[in-house]
């Protein structure tokens, strides 16, 4: 059954509808892609549980150490892999979280520019962190 027929059948049954005719005319309502953002926020959250705990444990192991000890740690394959994964998950999660906060509190023209700026900043910081990690991991 196609969606249009479903809508017509629903219109024929005289059930009260939650969407007002004005809201329908204005095109308000679901943009149909909200679930993907919601889901990715959860997936990155789950990934961040072990990654951030690994990071905290690593900082503890590094406490009191110098630059050479830090480089030696980040050059190990596990540490550089986990750091790249941490940065990717962290900044994806941050971008999604910031978007939710902006959508909740910014109702002016600034909403879309703020979301775009947050996305750009998160992506740039993520790439900067990964590049720094790779420079250390692959450097001599």
């Amino acid at each position, binding site marked *: 059954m196609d969606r249009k027929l479903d809508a017509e059948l629903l219109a024929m049954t005289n059930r009260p509808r939650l969407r007002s005719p004005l809201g329908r005319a204005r095109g308000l309502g679901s943009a149909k892609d909200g679930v993907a953002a919601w889901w990715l926020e959860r997936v990155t959250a789950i990934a961040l549980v072990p990654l951030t705990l690994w990071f905290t444990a690593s900082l503890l192991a590094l406490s*009191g150490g110098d630059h050479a000890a830090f480089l030696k740690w980040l050059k190990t394959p596990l540490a550089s892999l986990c750091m790249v994964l941490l940065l990717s998950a962290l900044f994806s999660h941050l971008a999604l979280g910031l978007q939710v906060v902006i959508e909740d509190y910014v109702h002016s023209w600034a909403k879309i520019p703020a979301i775009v700026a947050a996305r750009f900043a998160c992506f740039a910081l993520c790439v900067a962190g990964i590049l720094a990690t790779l420079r250390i991991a692959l450097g001599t």
Partner: protein
Amino acid sequence: MSTSSGRPLSPRLQIYRPQLTSVLSFTHRLTGLIMGLYAVALVVWLVAAAAGSQPYSSVQTFIHSGVGQVLLFAGTWCFFLHLCGGIRHLFWDAGRGFELSTIYVSGWIVVAASAVLTVATWIASWMLSSSR
């Protein structure tokens, strides 16, 4: 939310008595924003380490200063609050733990666990750095 339609708005948040549920909801959002600032610090730290031992030791000097240590302690607590609160949210997303009594029990667990984990992390840090 468009205010131009002239429809009545729900009462302002300030008229409600703060409750554990609302305070933790707000705290989760606030700690998330704060962790965003610490994520920037993480990248600064990594870039400094990649730039050489001089920039790295500048960052380390700041971290070991009084302000740096207070910020690091506050960041640790924010991190564990957001982590524990986030795990609580994941249980809700799975459709579990919505009974009012369970919500209060899980809320106090988040507060207690974040405090215990923060203190435990710092005790471990002091023990490890003093043993070097």
